[in-house]
């Protein structure tokens, strides 16, 4: 390895993240890369473990009244912010208020809230108008935005404005002076961090930092990242391109394993407001013809370990996954689809299919969809563009021929799809729903039932019914479940598979 690439110290870990850390306010900016970096700098009250259970993190304990209307929480002793000040209940209260304004679950709590207030330096009380059984999940969930705790003065920032100070109480400090957006972000070990005594398990347990410094090196070019990893210039690459995996696996100095076991769900969404997809039979025709294998091979190649066919909308391998009513998703029946399309009265209206070409996954899926639609006799108007344009155009509720759209492709992180809590894409509340604006009351009823469920059996029953209604009405079209690899050098130990890269317990020889 060239001397220049060896870094300043042996205890420096060089990490290539999935994307550029372009901003660093985890409430204002909800990108995953921001959430991942924020998990180093800001701590949370609870953390999700690998069994998807909320576990205490900053919290010493909690009590809920018998009527479920009053929650009382107490902080652990000795927690400090990076500026040396103690973490107090008023910091927590203000942080939760800022989080509530931007998070779907936070907004739900806000809607039934009587009061959220500190009762002493370490305790606070949350009084509600009606019970909210998923309170601890809301505080522990790792879906962006997470309820990160900041000093009160910072948390007073308007949630729609960026913070300008990056002071947390997490296990690492953000070296702001070394931050070059688009190139580098640096985190240094926080000596006063007090980890929990339990073993680390995802975002739960003791977050023990065994390295002095973590440097995030932004590399837009996958081939360069692969070469840098092979050359020992970086230590860990979060999301290697599938095409480069054979090269990395062939290098004796590199480990390759699944990165996020919760993976991603590929998807395309149809616009339920305008023809042709305001017609249920047309949507059903498309889903009936869809072959997930075509999509997954286009996205991840021929490695069969990296994808699964879905019979439901939730993340496979998680406790609530169900295929109830999901036969249509696996039908792959073009003849039946053509019959449905004929019955629908489809008159050849163009399908304005907006496809981002700068994202490998959306481009691949878009190409497959264009062929799929043509194969059942639909008229495709393929609009090749970039993700920035898709992001703006999909919000348009104008007809497809007047600047709107009929269909766009995306993907959902599996971590967001383990239940309805953060699964915006499954919601079907019409005008308030995600892009495409499906209106399926049966889905919304079961979402509410899940939130009210007090045990796993009741949750499973609700999601079974939800899945059935979502498939029947084609809320959207999942194109398969896929995983990504991560790769790291063998002198690095402690790397685990998880929904985000965890730096605690990671060491470098």
């Amino acid at each position, binding site marked *: 390895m060239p001397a220049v690439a060896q870094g300043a110290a042996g205890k420096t870990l060089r990490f290539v993240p999935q994307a550029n850390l372009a901003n660093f306010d985890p409430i*204002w900016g909800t990108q995953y890369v921001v959430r991942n970096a924020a998990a180093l700098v800001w701590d949370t009250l609870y953390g999700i473990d690998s069994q998807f259970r909320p576990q205490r993190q900053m919290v010493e304990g909690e009590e809920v009244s018998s009527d479920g209307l009053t929650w009382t929480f107490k902080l652990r002793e000795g927690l400090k912010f990076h500026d040396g000040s103690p973490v107090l209940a008023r910091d927590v209260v203000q942080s939760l208020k800022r989080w509530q304004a*931007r998070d779907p679950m936070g907004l739900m709590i806000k809607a039934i809230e009587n009061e959220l207030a500190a009762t002493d330096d370490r305790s606070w009380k949350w009084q509600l108008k009606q019970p909210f059984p998923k309170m601890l999940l809301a505080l522990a969930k790792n879906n962006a935005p997470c309820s990160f705790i900041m000093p009160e003065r910072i948390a007073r920032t308007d949630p729609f404005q960026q913070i*300008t100070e990056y002071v947390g109480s997490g296990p690492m400090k953000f070296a702001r002076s070394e931050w070059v957006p688009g190139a580098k972000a640096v985190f240094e070990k926080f000596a006063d961090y007090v980890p929990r005594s339990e073993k680390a398990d995802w975002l739960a347990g003791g977050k023990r930092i065994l390295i002095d410094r973590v440097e995030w090196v932004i590399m837009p070019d996958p081939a360069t990242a692969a070469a840098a990893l092979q050359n020992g210039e970086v230590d860990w690459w979060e999301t290697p391109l599938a095409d480069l995996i054979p090269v990395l696996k062939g290098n004796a100095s590199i480990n390759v394993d699944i990165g996020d076991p919760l993976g991603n769900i590929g998807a395309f969404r149809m616009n339920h407001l305008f023809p042709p997809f305001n017609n249920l039979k047309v949507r059903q025709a498309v889903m009936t013809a869809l072959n997930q294998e075509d999509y997954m091979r286009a996205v991840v190649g021929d490695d069969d370990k990296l994808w699964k066919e879905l019979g439901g909308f939730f993340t496979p391998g998680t406790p609530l996954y169900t295929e109830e009513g999901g036969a249509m998703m696996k039908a792959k029946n073009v003849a039946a689809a053509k019959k449905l399309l004929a019955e629908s009265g489809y008159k050849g209206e163009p399908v304005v299919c907006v496809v981002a070409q700068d994202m490998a996954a959306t481009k691949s899926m878009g190409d497959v969809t264009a062929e799929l639609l043509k194969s059942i006799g639909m008229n495709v108007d393929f609009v090749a563009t970039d993700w920035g344009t898709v992001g*703006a155009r999909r919000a348009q509720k104008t007809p497809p021929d007047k600047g709107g759209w009929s269909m766009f492709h995306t993907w959902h992180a599996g971590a967001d799809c383990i239940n309805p809590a953060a699964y915006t894409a499954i919601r079907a509340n019409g005008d308030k729903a995600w892009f495409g604006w499906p209106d399926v009351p049966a889905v919304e009823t079961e979402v509410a039932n899940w939130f009210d469920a007090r045990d796993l059996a009741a949750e499973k029953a609700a999601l079974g019914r939800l899945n059935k209604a979502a498939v029947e009405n084609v809320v959207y079209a999942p194109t398969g479940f896929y995983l990504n690899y991560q790769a790291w050098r063998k002198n690095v130990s402690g790397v685990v598979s998880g929904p985000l890269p965890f730096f605690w317990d990671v060491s470098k020889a």
Partner: protein
Amino acid sequence: MLSFIVRRIVATIPVMALVALFVFSLLYIAPGDPAAIIAGDQASPADVARIRESLGLDRPYLIRFGEWSWRILQGDLGTSIFTNLPVTQLIGQRIEPTVSLMVLTLIFAVVIAVPMGVIAAWKAGTWVDKGAMAFAVLGFSVPVFVVGYLLAWIFALKLDWLPVQGYTPLAEGFWPWLRNLILPTVTLGLVYVALIARITRATMLEVLQQDYVRTANAKGVAQKDVLFLHSLKNAAVPIVTIIGIGIALLIGGAVVTESVFAIPGLGRLTVDAILRRDYPVIQGVVLMFSLVYVLVNLLIDLTYTLVDPRIRY
């Protein structure tokens, strides 16, 4: 001469004003919404609207253009929508790698290409000429990213002589700085070498037919003096021109080279900003590049007077 320089500098003002108007208008009508990107997938339309409002993106075109122009006149390029950092700070963080890469590439290209073109013209029709021109065609034809990957594979991965990526500031030492820039410089410089070598050869071929060259040869002037003192000086105007035009090529090529070698320069800053619709950054960088280009052209015009005393302004 002085009045020429003053006139040219004054002439840059309307040019820059037109560039500013063009860039601002183009971004205004371009599709895409930074507020939607910031808000993320979970956001409601109301959230997106509120972010748009907080960024001032909901205001009329003329008001936004007027405010932006007023700030530009005060030397304030604005604040990045995404990083919340001043555009001048972002440019300041990125300018050294890009300038280093461009200067080294320019030196590399001129040092290699000019002698190559002169010798090719001198040995016109021989294997030396054909070899040089074959190299030039290759330099034109092979895409920058292919050259970059190939060089990195050979000199970094296989031979372990140089790093694959990154940038070390000059302040941390000349050799560490140079090591990181050798492969990017060669990668970016090949096209430029090809361009300058071909122009030099073509111009020299014409000059070498002139009577005064024949006279110099007849007098027994040393060949290197005939080529590099008598002939090259008279062929210099087109060569200097093409070097100036090439700087625009360098700016474009730097975008790809910086991506391939993960150099935190202005090219990558621009691409990232475009993909995210970070309007203040795009506007700031384009304005800066335009100003550089205008000034380089002025410098080239002034250089003509040095290489050809007949030219007077």
